[in-house]
């Protein structure tokens, strides 16, 4: 096993580095004024509703400290819900309650907490503990996704979500993020969730990684990832692509969940999507982004962009060869 890879080899593979992502894509394509919509989940949600993009139902918001006292009224009759900071980053501060046990709440890990704990968590959110730059924030309470049973075994104690990187309206790369026991039910790769690269053209899995190392099966449920096939794939891509025009962000990551009833739903947007998706896809982003730029130059039509992307960004080399001819 190699200890380090040479920078030239990385460049040949088309791997996008953190510095280049920051300067060349986030800094260059994303205007700062457009960040607000992506960074604030409440704004994302209302913008999505205006455009008819499906999102998880909002049960309520807590904006001020005094409202924390009345939290149980908002929560009454709700057996499962999620409390999260509107401006949280990196999946921080998300409390997932799956059920009730008398006066207690059941966390996704199965641990029991009392209402005091829930209130404390909410106060911390309001004080800006989990938020970008430590700003005061508001807490939002929304419905827990009842995720598609097809994906049930791919995630442990948490909802799996699908991250799609969209560049200038063209979906360029995707991965499913599966919660594990070590990630505490969170679909966050930093915390030990498994990332499964998804073929843009088919919605099938390519490769799975945990902590940037390749794995073949889920560490907890032991299901093999190579059988994974995301249902409603075309809809997922359409949803992700429509977020680009909604936010005005040219380089963004859309996090999508598959609800049993509602189908693909937009969970949140990320104006600074991470780079681990390249490891999960075993492919660099640079070449894909260059091709996506060509597609975007070619057409402005969303359906065409998705069609070209599905033809172009296949993991099988045959299809790729065909498509470059189409574009040129």
């Amino acid at each position, binding site marked *: 096993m190699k200890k380090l890879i040479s920078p030239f080899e990385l460049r040949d593979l088309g791997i996008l580095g953190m510095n280049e992502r920051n300067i060349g894509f986030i800094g260059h394509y994303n205007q700062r004024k457009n960040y607000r919509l992506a960074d604030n989940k409440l704004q994302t949600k209302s913008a999505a509703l205006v455009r008819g993009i499906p999102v998880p139902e909002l049960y309520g918001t807590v904006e001020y400290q005094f409202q924390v006292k009345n939290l149980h009224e908002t929560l009454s009759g709700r057996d499962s819900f999620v409390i999260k900071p509107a401006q949280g980053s990196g999946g921080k501060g998300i409390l997932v309650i799956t059920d009730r046990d008398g006066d207690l709440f059941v966390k996704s890990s199965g641990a029991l907490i009392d209402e005091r704990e829930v209130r404390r968590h909410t106060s911390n959110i309001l*004080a800006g503990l989990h938020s970008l730059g430590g700003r005061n924030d508001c807490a939002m309470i929304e419905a827990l996704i009842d995720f598609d049973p097809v994906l049930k075994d791919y995630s442990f104690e948490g909802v799996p979500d699908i991250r799609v990187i969209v560049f200038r309206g063209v979906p360029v790369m995707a991965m499913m993020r599966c919660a594990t026991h070590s990630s505490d039910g969170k679909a966050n790769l930093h915390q030990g969730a498994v990332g499964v690269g998804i073929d843009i053209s088919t919605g099938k899995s390519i490769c799975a990684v945990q902590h*940037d190392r390749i794995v073949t099966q889920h560490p907890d449920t032991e299901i093999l990832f190579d059988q994974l096939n995301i249902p409603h794939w075309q809809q997922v891509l359409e949803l992700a692509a429509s977020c680009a025009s909604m936010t005005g962000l040219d380089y963004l990551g859309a996090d999508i969940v598959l609800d049993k009833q509602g189908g693909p739903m937009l969970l949140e947007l990320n104006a600074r999507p991470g780079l681990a998706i390249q490891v999960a896809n075993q492919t660099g982003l640079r070449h894909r982004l260059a091709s996506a730029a060509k597609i975007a130059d070619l057409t402005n039509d969303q359906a065409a962009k998705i069609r070209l992307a599905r033809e172009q960004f296949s993991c099988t080399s045959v299809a790729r060869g065909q498509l470059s001819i189409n574009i040129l």
Partner: protein
Amino acid sequence: MINSKVQIGLIAGVFIALGIGLTLYKAVSLDLPLVPDQYREVWTIESKTSFAPTNTRVGSPVNVQLKLPTGQAGWVILEEHFASSGFGFSIIEESAGSSVARWTRQKLDRPTTLYYKMQTYRASQNSSLPILPIKIPQKPLLEPDQQAATDRLVDRLQKQSSNIESFVQLLLQEFLRDSPDQDTLFLLDSYEDDAFAVLMDVLAMADISAHQIRGIVLEDGRRRQTLNSLIEVYSGEQWSIFDPSTANLGLPDNFFIWQRGDGAVLNVVGGRDSSLEFALVSNSLPAKAVVGMEQRSDQYALLDFSIYTLPVEQQGIFKGLLLIPVAALVVVFMRLLVGVRTSGTFMPILIALAFIQTTLFIGLAIFLGLIGIGLWIRSYLSQLNLLLVARVATVIIMVILLMAALAVISYRLGLDQVLTVTFFPTVIVAWTIERMSILWEEEGGHEVLIQGGGSLLVAVMAYLVMSNHLVEHLTFNFPELTLSVLGVILLFGKYTGYRLSELYRFRDMGSK
């Protein structure tokens, strides 16, 4: 994108070239050395004469006379500046080359400070002083019991000593002992603990000609230094100097003679509560440049606009400030090129600044101790369900109490080094504890180790760079190099290549 890249490249290029160009100019044409060897230690001494007028309501005429030092024992005075706004000022030459600065004013109605600043260096290690005429000591008039005690003391010491020098040495040691004998104690008591006066009188009673030498103990960065005294005695053939604080023979190397012989250094007529304090700073300058400054100091226009022209206290502050850009460069390098994760972007610099005061290993131990104990207490606060701001405030107070406890306990145990704990920035330490604690709860101890370790690594590197002699020499003597540092940082800001950590992170990518 190309455009902004070119712009940054141009700006950075101009900054880097300007910094290096000015540095080379100073190095070549002014002979300032680029490396800190064969330099002269030039001391800038600033005296502050403060006093209040005797009558603040009406104002009173004031006449202040300050004896000026003459270069003695190999010391050469380079430049002298007097600040005396609103005062009539003159320098009066006295006999034997000594001179007095005189400030006068008809009416003064508020407390005032007069400044005298000069630069001096030791041209030779020759510490011999010119021969002074010998004055027959005048025996003081003492009370009978003082007289008796003095006689007994002189008698006893004369029996123990072989010559005048050993007599003086024994006498000085007598006053330094933890438990002096009865006579000495009595004398000290009757002279109101003015050991120096006792010494002079005892020497006079023993028929030894002696006088005091007043001057400054040179310590870099001292702000409120006062005059110290040495004793010079005539031993029959020559004058010998003794340091009453150590009883050692000879002129201490770090002693700058202000005045040799008795008589007041400062004389304020029409004022009260007068005080004389000194601020000191030492710089390394090349021998050649020092000689040049001596001869044609006004030709060096560049030096006139350098940091040397600032008041001494500010010079000391800038000495530290100019190191911060270098530390920032280290942080930029470690984060953008290496990819070390730190908690708080520039927190490592503040920790490194504290390390400079505490020295590295003690600083590390104190810091880890503070953070460790802090995290332990913070884990209890976690259960109390406090609002964030109140909780961080609590941690701040906790850190202060911890620091106080650490200082007191270590002082009691005789570990003076730990007293430097006060140099750690309290608020930063508190926030670090808070962040680490949250990180621990959310992402586990592993992440705390990575980020904490990263911060400490960067802090230690910044410390090593900042405490490097060459770096210190260059930043202070060539502050224009800061422009070059700025240029390099601007270039880093446009670096789109991989980070070292990414070469590790993506190491498996080529294998499949």
